[in-house]
């Protein structure tokens, strides 16, 4: 068997290329079932998100799954112009890549939680059309387990990494719950709106909006169900606010130390949090020196973002070790699985011989009593089991060895076992054996458990 993965992501390809390969949700089922039926491919899965498109496949006969051929046919395009954007991984590399993607180590924002859900959806779609059913299934399920382990053993998704969410986190550090807190929006602009949205989503209560142009204040206030305030009343009303987000184009600071002191005495020293995202700054740095007043300007916020990102990178490093460990474990499991078909056909082979011989004996001896039948049955079974014991355990030990294929080959040749693996690659043969695959599969699993 062979795993192969081909894809484009935000690191390797610009959006024009990614959208060329992206598959909308409505067409995904069709695409993935065509992938699984493509010549030489046994199982397949497609993950398509805005940041990445990944095609994952398994072939059964040891030759490379022709994923490029599939891409060419499916997208009706020549792949050459896209070569520099596509990455291709095989075997270990493909396993590792899938583990990294599911664990969000390959994401644009390392540690973001959405990707795991997206991979799960892709898996659901592929499963629904029967495109994953055995080893690829095992691989993808394992990837979910790895992602879970990474999340619980490292702090990779632990800290906020956007300015707006940092602002909320800091406000929580000061006020605890934001329930019922008043937020003052001074100025307008995308950042203010974004931060306000985050604060409101976290429970902030009343919203006051001020702007030099009163109409703009009214418009912004309408969005948040807030109260517009004329600009000249800013300083007289500001003491009501627990959190002030400011982003005006004022050339000099509009909040100075004396203002903050006035606010604090009016507020009976209840704390106040200024989030200053304006450049030049709206809040004089001296305000931060006033007891109970906390000021974060855009650089401070960005410094927190940067430190959280570097925390995540450190955690990502630890996550990579986990991934390595899991890739190794998965491989050794795969190798054990590799000998399973040989063991199964060996058992079948000997069982056929045994049955044939029993039939011959029966023909010669005529009718036998139940005891005689049972005795012959037990004796022949016993012989076979005793003979089989050593070869099977040798095969199982050999599976952990990198040179396992030679041992497997040897056993196959000694017993003249039919090599089912070659036939599976051949499309006509595949369809004829298709009905037996599920049966064979369950055998694989029982044999693997022995």
């Amino acid at each position, binding site marked *: 068997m062979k795993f192969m993965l081909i894809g484009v992501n935000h690191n390797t390809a610009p959006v024009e290329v990614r959208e060329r390969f992206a598959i909308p949700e409505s067409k995904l089922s069709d695409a993935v079932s065509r992938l699984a039926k493509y010549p030489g491919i046994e199982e397949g899965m497609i993950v398509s998100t805005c940041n990445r498109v990944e095609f994952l496949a398994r072939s059964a006969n040891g030759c490379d799954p022709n994923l490029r051929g599939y891409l060419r046919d499916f997208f009706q395009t020549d792949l050459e112009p896209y070569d520099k954007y596509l990455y291709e991984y095989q075997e270990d590399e493909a396993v590792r890549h899938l583990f990294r993607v599911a664990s969000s180590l390959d994401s644009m924002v390392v540690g973001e939680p959405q990707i795991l859900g997206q991979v799960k959806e892709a898996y659901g779609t592929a499963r629904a059309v029967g495109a994953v059913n055995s080893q690829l299934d095992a691989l993808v399920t394992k990837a979910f387990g790895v992602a879970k382990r990474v999340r619980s053993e490292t702090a990779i998704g632990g800290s906020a990494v956007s300015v707006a969410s940092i602002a909320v986190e800091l406000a929580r*550090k000061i006020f605890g719950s934001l329930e019922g807190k008043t937020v003052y929006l001074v100025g307008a602009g995308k950042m203010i709106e974004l931060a306000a949205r985050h604060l409101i989503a976290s429970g902030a209560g009343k919203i006051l909006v001020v702007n030099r142009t009163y109409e703009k204040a009214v418009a912004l206030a309408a969005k948040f169900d807030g109260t517009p305030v004329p600009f000249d009343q800013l300083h007289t009303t500001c003491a009501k606010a627990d959190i002030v987000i400011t982003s005006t184009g004022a050339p000099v600071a509009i909040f100075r130390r004396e203002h903050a002191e006035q606010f604090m005495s009016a507020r*009976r020293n209840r704390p106040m949090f200024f989030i200053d995202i304006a450049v030049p700054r709206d809040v004089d740095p001296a305000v931060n020196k006033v*007891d109970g007043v906390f000021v974060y300007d855009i650089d401070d916020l960005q410094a927190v973002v940067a430190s959280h990102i570097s*925390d995540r990178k450190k955690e990502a490093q630890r996550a990579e070790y986990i991934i390595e460990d899991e890739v190794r474990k998965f491989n050794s499991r795969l190798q054990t699985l590799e000998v399973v078909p040989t063991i199964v056909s060996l058992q079948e082979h000997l069982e056929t011989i045994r049955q044939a011989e029993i039939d011959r004996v029966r023909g010669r001896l005529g009718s036998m009593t139940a005891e005689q039948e049972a005795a012959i049955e037990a004796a022949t079974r016993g012989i076979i089991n005793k003979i089989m014991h050593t070869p099977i355990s040798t095969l199982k030990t050999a599976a952990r060895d990198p040179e396992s294929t030679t041992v497997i080959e040897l056993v196959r040749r000694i017993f003249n076992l039919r090599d089912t693996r070659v036939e599976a690659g051949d499309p006509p043969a595949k369809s004829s054996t298709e009905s037996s695959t599920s049966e064979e599969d369950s055998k694989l699993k029982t044999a693997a458990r022995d």
Partner: protein
Amino acid sequence: MPLLWLRIALVLYGVGLLYALMALSRGSHFLDHFVFPCVGSGMVLQLVSIVETANEVGHLSPTTVHDVESLLALILMFFFMAIYARYRTLSPGILIFPVVFLLTFGAAIGKQPPQFASPLLRNGWIFVHIALIFTGYAALLFSFAASLLYLLQERGIKSKQVGLLTKLPALEVIDDIGYKSLLLGFPFMTFGLLAGAAIAASTFGPTFFRDPKILLSTAMWAVYMILLWTRWNAGWRGRRAAFLNMIVFLVALGAFAANYFSGVHGFIAQ
């Protein structure tokens, strides 16, 4: 038997101590799930131990320094549980667990000290006095712990080094814990001192007032009241209030330690 319970309690409080040490060194969170059940069962065992001791001697009042330590540790744990129930935070434990551990350690491991000789101890009012005052001390210790955490946290946020303090509760919550502890402690302290004064006046007559322990305690009570008044009236909060809390605690610690200079309160010496 009471000593056995106390020693098991000590081991359980040891988990609390470990938690406190690990919280300060950041990083691992693995004790977070065990610490509460551990110190909780420690507290129950300590209660059992105290009740058994009281049963043996026939009265509630502590008869040795060890009993005193154990009782104080138990009251601290009660406070901790009350705060946990209200605020769902283990953070005060960072300071309280080590204190509880040390007190219990003294009580469980130390040599058996001489029994208090004073016949006064058989007076039921003494127990009321001790219990009230100790509750007051416990409240002050909590408010001290909260103030310390507040200052740490406030410094972290102001200097924009938030990363280190991710485990602490929000500033307003810490401030609230400090303030509520202070408020709660005041009536206990007041009535405890009144009970003490009544017992002393009836035993020693009016001269008891010149004793250093009594003077310090009165001073402590006065500072305590002033602090409460400033918080109430002047609306002091945050840093300034935290510093004041700490001063009250230190004065109270002085008053507690004054046993060693006191004629009236020195039960062992008599």
